[in-house]
């Protein structure tokens, strides 16, 4: 299923679908200097110190193990990859961010198509793995997430999930501490450590979808690539209320599974389908490729298909366990938008999207995320950021991307393709 640029399942980039009304608005959070102050780094690292890997952090990296490397920051290992380029191996690195949050770099999130999109003659490529993949998943946190999931399935769309259930997730799981997704500080500190180890700078940044937010982290840490490409970028700093409203509008155009599947229990699924599963399946379709949409149109009454789509959105496995990928999604996208509703609106039926993202509003405080900026001018060359989007992109609509980019002085290239199409890289001038 194609989500953010590279093939990835699930929520990856839920936030990227944002159709915000305040993109590029003056009140968007100003860039902050997040780089690795000792205190912020160590506190983030302390919260994230528990990992599931034993010994060599790369031993469980599977088929990409040869490409896996690791650094230790604040007592916690972080994994990354340097993919050999097809051109020079002695120059600066290309920092490729395939999007997310919620992508398993050395598993289903390996960005083969994005790497291919960089074309021949590319320099060596640096990829950072999101922290959740090797983070320990404590019982208290896992239980809180499961309780929230059970409540949502039982209540939505009839009534909202009790606030206590929602807020318990943030408390039990330590959201916004760098345990699951990146914080600007943890990303900056780890990137610093990686670049120090590799002994090479980042000369090029290519970010698909949510990669635009990671560019802001990197810049705040003092990394200044001279060439930047943002492909189907997520509009960091946009208004969450506008995003929710725009997504509700988009949902109206999605195929609707037959309501008759509610109450059915597909083979090989531990749970019956609830009304919330239908809503979740439709949200998942917003990330779907055309093939998936066609499947749903022709199999509206297929309970197994509906369950599958819902499970992909939540990251459900076993019976009602949810993958920590969902925590990574909340961990990074909540701070990347502003103005999350603090409480349910009282509307009936309840909005699934609002309930799915209610953990963002339930948090007492969230860190401020720096938005990406233009690279510094270099002698004889005008700085610039290449932004590419598709006029038919349903994940981050053109109506969102264009004003967000123009507010930063960046022009936008419109290109035919899907959200995060790897071919978009070819629409940006080659560095050099």
């Amino acid at each position, binding site marked *: 299923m194609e989500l953010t640029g590279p093939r990835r*399942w699930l929520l990856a980039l839920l936030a990227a679908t944002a159709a915000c009304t305040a993109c590029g608005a003056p009140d968007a959070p100003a860039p902050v200097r997040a780089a690795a102050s000792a205190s912020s780094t160590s506190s983030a690292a302390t919260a994230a110190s528990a990992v599931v890997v034993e010994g060599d952090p790369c031993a469980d990296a*599977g088929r990409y*193990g040869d490409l896996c490397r690791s650094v230790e920051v604040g007592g916690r290992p972080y994994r990354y990859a340097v993919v050999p380029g097809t051109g020079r191996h002695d120059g600066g690195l290309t920092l490729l961010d395939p999007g997310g949050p919620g992508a398993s770099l*050395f598993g289903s999130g390996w960005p083969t198509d994005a790497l291919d999109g960089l074309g021949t003659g590319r320099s060596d490529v640096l990829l950072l793995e999101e922290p959740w993949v090797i983070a320990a998943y404590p019982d208290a946190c896992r239980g809180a997430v499961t309780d929230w999931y059970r409540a949502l399935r039982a209540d939505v769309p009839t009534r909202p999930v009790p606030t206590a259930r929602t807020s318990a997730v943030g408390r039990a799981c330590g959201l916004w501490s760098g345990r699951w997704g990146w914080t600007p500080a943890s990303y900056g500190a780890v990137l610093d450590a990686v670049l120090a180890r590799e002994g090479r700078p980042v000369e090029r940044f290519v970010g698909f979808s949510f990669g635009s937010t990671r560019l802001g982290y990197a810049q705040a840490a003092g990394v200044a690539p001279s060439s930047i490409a943002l492909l189907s970028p997520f509009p960091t700093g946009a208004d969450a209320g506008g995003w929710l409203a725009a997504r509700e509008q988009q949902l109206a155009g999605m195929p609707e599974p037959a309501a008759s599947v509610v109450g059915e229990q597909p083979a*090989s699924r531990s749970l019956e389908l609830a009304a919330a599963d239908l809503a979740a399946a439709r949200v998942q379709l917003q990330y779907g490729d055309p093939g998936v949409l066609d*499947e749903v149109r022709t199999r509206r009454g297929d309970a197994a298909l509906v369950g599958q789509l819902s499970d*992909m959105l939540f990251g459900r496995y076993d019976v009602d366990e949810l993958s920590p990928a969902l925590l990574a999604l909340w961990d990074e996208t909540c701070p990347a938008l502003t103005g999350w509703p603090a409480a349910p609106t009282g509307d009936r039926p309840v909005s699934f999207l609002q309930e799915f993202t209610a953990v963002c509003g339930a948090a007492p405080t969230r860190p401020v995320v720096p938005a990406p900026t233009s690279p510094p001018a270099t002698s004889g060359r005008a700085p610039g950021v290449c932004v590419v989007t598709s006029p038919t992109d349903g994940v981050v609509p053109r109506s969102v991307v264009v004003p967000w980019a123009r507010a930063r002085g960046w022009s936008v290239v419109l290109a035919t393709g899907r959200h995060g199409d790897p071919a978009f890289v070819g629409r940006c001038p080659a560095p050099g």
Partner: protein
Amino acid sequence: MRRTMLAVGVTAAVAGLVAPAAAHAAPAAAEATRTTRVVDQVRFSGAQVVAEAGRDRGQARADAAKRDFLASQARSGVLWDGTEVASATLGRDTDVAYSTNIDLTQVRTALVEQADGEQSSEIQAVGEPKAASTSSAQGFRAGSDSLKNVAGQVNGSYSGGALTVQVSGDKLTSAWERYRVKESKTDRNIYYYGHWATAVGKVVSGGNDHHPGTIDIRSRPKVGHRGDFLQMRNYWPKESGTNCDDYNVSIGILGFSAGLPLGNCEGFTPDPNASDILMKNVWSDGACRDSRSEYADLGMAVDVRTSASTALLSDYSYARFEEAICDQDSGDDIRVIYADPGWS
């Protein structure tokens, strides 16, 4: 292979700790026989494993193996429902967890002592996909750690499965996947079939971690189904080394295209056998091992008669773990492993 899409089965049999000579009964095992002896061996048929899995349900150790499998797969982006995974404990120190779309054939493990006193352990698995998909949810590929950037498949044709065998901290994971190629031929159906395995050695204090020395994976028609196959149209990888230096091998079968994520470019010995529709790939690190985890992969394109329900292949997976990073006797042992023991 995600839970949502999963698939049909592969028969998986795992054998662990088997002395090379004893486990493979290789005809050219004279040197290995001279230098090794089996210290301990466990051999279970698929039926025995399934029976153990039924008895073990609710038992702490087997349940933990299942939870570990589910959680590990989820961290890779692969989601399985609990009803689609089973687990069993075999003897004192062997745990098996597997997707139930696999027909286990055999699990075998062995501990081998070499002439110099060094010990190595072996894990071996054989199995095959079940003949038919058991869930209508299968066939839909939403997330997988296998092929990338797939195009040109018949919608809903994806299927896949996985199993893990763990013996005293050494772990072999074997997985498979299958797509039906979209084409217009009327006398045959064409499939891509992939099989890969990872081996992770035990963590031992003092820098004495176990290291995989050999991984041997093979796929061929399930016994009794050779007649379903018309030909092996193509295979991957072609060779090790420079051809995979970008860690991605392009798969092309008529209109079907994908990238095979070849994560380990050195040490492979691909060995196709077109007449038997057999594809084998052996990874070896030679006499010295330098990593606690290693990996091997193979892919094949096969033509199948339209009368057959699918391309029904059987997988054999084998890994050998060494205590020592360098062992003067290991060369002999590795040659024995290359011998084809058959696995039905």
